[in-house]
Every structure is written in C-alpha cells, then in structure tokens.
C-alpha cells in the first residue's frame, strides 16, 4: 500500500523576460512623412507637432520596435523640420501591418494592447490585379475621416501608411484603412488597454472570516489600482481608511490584493478592481458570497445522523445473532455431550474403521 505524495500543482512557466530596450532610432533614420494629401502644405501641421514635442520632451527614453512586417517605402520629399523636431522625442515606437487582397471577403482585424503613450505607425498593404492608381485608400477612426496618411505603390501592391501619437484615452479606439468603396476592403486596428484577470468563480466565505480578493494583469504594470464595491449598478469606492476592515496591498505591480476582515452578510456582492493606465482604465469583477456556518452544518449533521443509525443497527444485529447462536450453541453442546458419552462407550469399535482405512491404502501401494 503506498501513499501517493500527490503532484505538486504544476508550476507556471517563468515570466517572460522584459524586452531589451533598443536605442531610439529616430535620429538615425530618415523619415518620410505624408502631411495630409499631396496638396496639403507642410506648414499647417507644424504648430501641432511643436506642441506635442514640448509636451513629450521630458519623457524617459524607451523604444522598442514591434515591427511585424517591413513595408517597402519609397521616400517622398522629407520634411526636414520634422526630423529635427522628432529627434528629441522618446516615445515607444510601434509599427503594425495588415495585408489585404481584392479577394478578401472578410474584414481583417488586429487587436493591440497598449499601456503607455506611443508613437504608432499603421501600414495597410493591398494587392490587386487591376490598376493600382485607380484605388483611393482612406483612413478612418470610427466614422471620422483621418488626414495625414501616405500612399505608395510598387507594382501591384498599394501601401498606405498612417502615423500618429496616442497619448490619451481619446486616441484609443479603432483605426481602419479602406480600399474600394463599392466592394469594401477594410483593415482594422483595435487599440485597447491591457485586460485585468480576476477569479471567474464566486468566492465563498463565512461570517466572521476574512478573505482576499485578487486581481492580476499579465505583462503589464498599471499606474494605480482602485477597488469599488457595487450593489446592483452603482459602483462605490471601497473605504480604505477603515483599517480593521479593509487592507489593500500587492506584492508586484501587476497584482493587487484586497483583504476584507470580519465579514458579514452585508459584505456580499460584486467587487470591481480598476487598473489605471495613462491611456485608460480596465476593470474586472469579483463576486463575493458570504454564508453562515449553518449552511455546511446541515449536510454534516445529516451524515452524523446516518452514521449513528448505521452503527446502532449493525451492533444490534450483532447482539441479536450472537444471542441466537448462544441458544443454538447450548442445544448443540447438549447434543455433543450426549454423543461423546455414546462415543466413549463405543471407543474401541471406532478405532477399527480407521485402521482398516490405512491398511487398505497400504495395500493399494505395495
């Protein structure tokens, strides 16, 4: 018989190492920007860019390049002013690419999670058998038309690029590139803040007990975590000043724990954890159920009653059968005593048959 020292819960794979930070390449690479359509003048957009530059000049250096596919660019006349202005900017730089053909029946979508303000470059690539020059690509954010995108063509492939900066919640959303108005070929980029994971199942606790509600966010570090409790629809922030009731702490930046002590029936309901990012918020719901001790006590008492009943039935049966046996045994003993007496008188005779048996076997062998 062996004891099964049971399996340790399979451990999670070690967290991915953070990506190595690459040096900002802005100063080294010559950029080409399309300022509006071919007719637009470069100067009109300058003042806006300047504003942005001063806003973000004190951002810390970080740049990583998540380039999915390189898009061949043919350089148009470059706005020199732009490069000098952007050489001081140190935002995250992200490039995203989507490929379409004229035969794509379904719209192509890409979901992107973004935490920090970034410099985004979206590229759509359209392959067609017809005339590239007859297609006019456009960019939209939701329903709103966008300006400032670039169009290039090489052979049968049409490229269109839109570059912009996301720095607040207003700029998050869906950006689409559109080709051919009649048979709409659309590529969409959905920008969202990272999602938060809580516990899917309701948390069961008991009156007077304490519990821990956990919210986690994988591969992200929010600026702040806040907790709300809600009954029905209204979300009310959790009053953290009550130190003997609530305590919020988290071991890492990507998780938060709300500890609730001295639970009562009034504490049950939904709790929301909010992860606050620069570009928005994401939330998750954790449900808390508070039971009284009577709830598990009922099945327990049921089992105890069943055990007591079975034990008494079995012991009663045992006593009954033993009493019966003792009566029959007394009868048997009497009979055996009688038999023994008769055997004693016939003792000599009884030995004979046994001897006869052995003799016959001897004869069988020899």
């Amino acid at each position, binding site marked *: 018989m*062996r004891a*099964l020292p049971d*399996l340790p819960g*399979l451990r999670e794979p070690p967290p991915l190492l953070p990506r190595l930070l690459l040096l900002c390449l802005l100063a080294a690479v010559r950029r080409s920007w399309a300022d509006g359509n071919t007719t637009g003048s470069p100067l009109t957009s300058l003042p806006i860019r300047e504003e942005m530059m001063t806003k973000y000049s004190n951002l810390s250096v970080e740049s990583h390049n998540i380039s999915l596919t390189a898009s061949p660019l043919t350089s148009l006349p470059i706005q020199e002013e732009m490069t000098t202005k952007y050489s001081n900017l140190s935002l995250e730089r992200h490039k995203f690419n989507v490929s379409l053909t004229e035969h794509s029946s379904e719209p192509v979508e890409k979901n992107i999670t973004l935490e920090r303000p970034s410099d985004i470059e979206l590229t759509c690539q359209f392959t067609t058998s017809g005339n590239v020059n007859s297609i006019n690509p456009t960019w939209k954010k939701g329903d709103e038309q966008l300006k400032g995108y670039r169009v290039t063509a090489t052979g049968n492939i049409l490229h269109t690029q839109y570059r912009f900066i996301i720095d607040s919640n207003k700029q998050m959303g869906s950006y689409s590139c559109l080709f051919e108005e009649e048979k709409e070929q659309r590529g969409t980029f959905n920008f969202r803040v990272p999602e938060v994971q809580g516990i899917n199942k309701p948390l*069961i606790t*008991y009156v007077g007990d304490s519990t821990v509600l956990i919210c986690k966010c994988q591969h992200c570090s929010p600026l702040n975590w806040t907790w709300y409790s809600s009954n029905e629809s209204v979300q009310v922030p959790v009053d953290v000043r009550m130190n003997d009731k609530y305590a919020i702490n988290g071991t890492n930046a990507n998780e938060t724990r709300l500890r609730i002590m001295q639970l009562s029936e009034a504490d049950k309901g939904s709790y929301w954890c909010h992860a606050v990012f620069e570009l928005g918020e994401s939330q998750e719901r954790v449900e808390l159920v508070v039971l009284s001790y009577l709830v598990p006590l009922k099945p*327990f008492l049921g*089992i105890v009653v069943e055990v007591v009943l079975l034990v008494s039935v079995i012991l009663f049966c045992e006593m009954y059968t033993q009493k019966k046996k*003792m009566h029959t045994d007394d009868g048997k003993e009497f009979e055996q005593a009688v038999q023994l007496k008769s055997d004693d008188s016939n003792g000599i005779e009884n030995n004979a048959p046994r001897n006869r048996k052995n003799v016959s076997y001897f004869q069988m*062998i020899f």
Partner: protein
Amino acid sequence: MAKGARVRSSSPPDGGWGWMIVAGCFLVTICTRAVTRCISIFFVEFQTYFTQDYAQTAWIHSIVDCVTMLCAPLGSVVSNHLSCQVGIMLGGLLASTGLILGSFATSLKHLYLTLGVLTGLGFALCYSPAIAMVGKYFSRRKALAYGIAMSGSGIGTFILAPVVQLLIEQFSWRGALLILGGFVLNLCVCGALMRPITLQEDQTTPEQNHIGRTQKPDFQRVSPCSTLTKKWVQTCLCCSLQQEYSFLLMSDFVVLAISVLFMAYGCSPLFVYLVPYALSVGVSHQQAAFLMSILGVIDIIGNITFGWLTDRRCLKNYRYVCYLFAVGLDGLCYLCLPMLQSLPLLVPFSCTFGYFDGAYVTLIPVVTAEIVGTTSLSSALGVVYFLHAVPYLVSPPIAGWLVDTTGSYTVAFLLCGFSMIFSSVLLGFARLVKKMKKTQLRFLAKEPDPKLQLWTNGSAAYSVARELDHRDEQSVALTVPGPSPT
C-alpha cells in the same frame, strides 16, 4: 481479547460475514488512503488564504502520511488489547475530530496539528486492524478479498477527487473540511462491522493469557502495595507485548522487513515525478494528467484481477513468488523508463507499472500472513506499514535532489529500479535458501516424515503435507485419488 461472545468457528469462513468485512475494509481504505490523497486538492486554497508558498502547505500531506504509517503499530496494539471494533471506532472519531477542528483553523500551524497529526493518528488506528481482520475471515479466497479491499484507495480517489472539488466550490475549504470530517466518521460504521472471530490457531493464546492472568490474584494477595501492582502491570504488559511481537525474531519476517524497506523506497517517487518527467520529454499537460489517470485506473484493475488470479488453485501455493515477480517487474519498468521519451511509449509503461503496482499491494498482507500466521497478522501488518513510512518520506526528496544535481531523471529512476529489483531478489534468495535447508534436513534426518512414506509421488506428498499443516484431516479426501474413505 475478543469483545462480546465468542464466534465459534474453527476455520476462516471464506464468505458469509466475511464479505461484510471486505466491504468494511474497502470503506476504511477509501476513508483513509483516498482522503489523504484528496487533501492535496486543498493546497491551492490554503496557499491563497494563508499566503504561503507550496512547500509550506505540502507539509500537511507529508505529516498525515508519515503519522499514519509511523503509528500503524500503535493501531495494531490498541486493537489487540481492546478489540478491533473499539480500535477502529476510536480511530474514526479521532480522524473526524481532526478534520472538524481543521475547518476552524486560523493559521497553517493549526492545520499541521489538527489535519496532520490528529487525523493521521486516527487513520493509523483504523488501517492495519481492518486489513488484518480480512485475513482472519478468508483463507481460500484471501487474495481476492484483499484485492477488493485494497482497490478502495484507487476507486476512492477517483470518486472523491471531483466530489472534494465540488465541495470546495460550494462551501469553500472550511465547509469542505467540515463535511469531509463527517464523511470520515463513517469509519465508525466500518468499525462496527468488524465482528471478532476466534480461529482454531487462536485457541492456544487465550490459554497462555489466562496463565499470565492467574498470577495476578497471587500478587495482590501477597502485598497490596501499589508499587508491586505497578510492577505486575508492567510484567503483564511486557509478557503480552513480547508474545505479540515474537514474530520479529523470525528470520523470514526480518527478510520481508528489509525487502519492504527497499520496495517502499523504490515505489513512491514515480507518482511524484512521472508528470514532470513526461513534461520534460515533451508531453503536454493534458496528456501527462491522462498518464496519471491511466496509472490509477489500471492500479485498481491490478488489485482485483491479480487477487483473483493468485487465488486460483494453480497459483495459490506460489503467492510468494507472484509477489516478488510483481515487485521485480516494477523495478524492470523503472529501468526502462529513461529510454521512453514519447507518449506512445509512456502509455504502455503506465499500464504495466500500474498493474503490477496494484498486484503487489494486494499481496503484501497475504505474504505477511503466510509468514507470521493470522494471530500476529495485525501486529505484523503494523510493523510492515511502519517500515513504509521512512522510505516514503525520504525517497521523493532524494530523487528530487538527484534530478537537480544531475539535470536529468535517469539516475533517480535507475536507483529506484535497482532498489525494487534488490528487494525482489532478496526475497527470492531467502526462499531458495530456505528450500535448500529444508531438503537438506529431510535428507539428513534419520526418521523420515511418516506422511511422506505413504506416497510414491514426492511432489504430491509435499503439497499434501502442507495442506495438512493448515487444514483438518478432511482435506486428505480431496487430494487422494482412489477409493473414497468409508
């Protein structure tokens, strides 16, 4: 000794109330072994609630296992001196108290004491007496009875694991522990089922006890001093303990004990390291879990079918050989394991290992009974399970250390394989030596055994002689061909 009136039977009934005993033992194995395994389902909950890491919570399981095995001799002593029924009922009460108190725990240390020590002690008081009881009620179908009784751990784990998970989801771990405590209270029902039985070979012992006890009134008459009565108590206890544990000096038993040590060392790491090994050779998580369930299910099948097989007339006299064959095969499987690097190879390994693992588990009580006889079976089983405890504790960490230092599982598995093969070889060697000594003695003895003279066929004589050792003269009628006795 036996509580209540004696059941007058001179030989094991091999049926009748014996099947109720088997059912009771089945339930005991469910409530002890299966519940021990299911405790690990609570670990995730404990980790979140008490904010401790896995190593701290895993101690609970080790403590329960260790205490259950270490206190197994205590269980047999209690049931020998009070009665099997009282012993198992007491164990049931203790175990369920431990679980109920554990449901109110406020720290991990409380759980170590209640869930670990108290529950483990309760289980220890139940386990070996129940198994010994089965041996008393069966002789012809002993292995089958043991197979059915021992399959409780596998079937119990299979059923209890999802049930415990459901309980945790409905009532959280506190409510689940409370209800599990109620479930374990069913051990008292099993205890009530264990009607005492006095066998023919037990008739000698009550007389010896009686002799020991008749000295008591003499002592009391000579000096009513309290110190002397204490001395009497000690001598009486010493006497009975000496008599109970006299089998410890038997060479057969010593050999069995040493082989059990090595066998227990070998068998435990597989259940801990099969899944990590499978994952390391590229098997996915679900497939690795599937391997473990195959192991569990085939274990149950091995329990029952091997028990039935070794009850067949052809194998009945070779139970010892079957036991060491099963252990040896398991060792061989271990040796092959480092060469199996993919799922299609690991599945047959799981099936084979699981089957023979179930097989030898069924035969441990049978082999022990053959060596020590049914009177001391309870105490002997206590000692055998006690010897399981230390290797179970020590073996997985040693295997883990070997895996960490060498970087692969090969050395650990090879060590376990050789340990099991050594255990089986030791037993085979001991049996061989015993046979040679017997034939030598018979050769050298001037007066040959009168029973042997009667029959020309030497092997039939040997088997008849054995049969006569164990049974009444009526068995002669079964083996003798020719004219039936008048």
